[in-house]
């Protein structure tokens, strides 16, 4: 079977499911962030696959570029928040953090 659009979609759904699994099962906030990165990568594979096999020109690739920029901004802000959580609680287990402010 020749590799086509559905092969890329299968890879991306698997990556998306693994990312969701990471987000819902891991306690460590940094691990949750890694799960989110996996999800964003899965979405990007979809955008670029449809950009190649659909009739959209380069629009899909441009949006994938924007997703990468947003992922970088999100990672920076989220890690700053995680550092603050660590300074307050001395751990970063998301299931034990219940207060929004001290």
């Amino acid at each position, binding site marked *: 079977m020749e590799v086509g659009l559905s092969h890329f979609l299968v890879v991306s759904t698997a990556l998306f499911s693994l990312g969701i*699994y990471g987000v819902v099962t891991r306690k460590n906030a940094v691990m949750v962030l890694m799960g989110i990165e996996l999800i964003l990568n899965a979405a990007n594979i979809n955008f670029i696959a449809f950009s190649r096999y659909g009739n959209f020109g380069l629009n899909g690739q441009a949006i994938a570029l924007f997703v990468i920029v*947003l*992922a970088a901004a999100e990672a920076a802000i989220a890690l700053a928040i995680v*550092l*603050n959580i660590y300074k307050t609680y001395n751990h970063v287990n998301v299931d034990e953090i219940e207060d929004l402010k001290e």
Partner: protein
Amino acid sequence: MELYDIIFYLFAAITLLSAFIVVTSKNIVHSAFNLLFTFFGVTGIYVLLGADFIAVVQLLVYIGGILILLLFGVMLTNRITSVDIRTGTVHIIPAVIGIGILWGALTAIIAFKTNWIVKPADSMEPTTVGLGNLLLTDYVLVFELLGILLLIALIGAASIARREFEELKD
């Protein structure tokens, strides 16, 4: 089987195996380093899809930027030398069941049940010129907004992470 197919399966295997290790490994440092192989595999998939510029950006931003940031996050939030850096997991069994159903449903519906209108893949050409034109014509507003967003994110991250030091000085 053509060479293209073999390379696709190779990169797909790298991506999915290392992503599996990322979400299941107990050691967070192992997770972070396996994330490198995941991003690398995704880069290969981008190249196979003819997105050369996106692939290079993925290498630079994800592997060179976000992964280093995540490693710093691991380093600064775990006492690597004293306490073991294992991380716990919660709700494994419901998660496995739920994600299994989600994955099966998504794969079945999206990839096999839907008849996508597929354009025959054209020959791969450099995309940088086209992307540059799009960024400064159709998407120029988004482009400018993203620049402002990155500036805000930079200032916000610095000020959030510095707040504690200022309080310590008082």
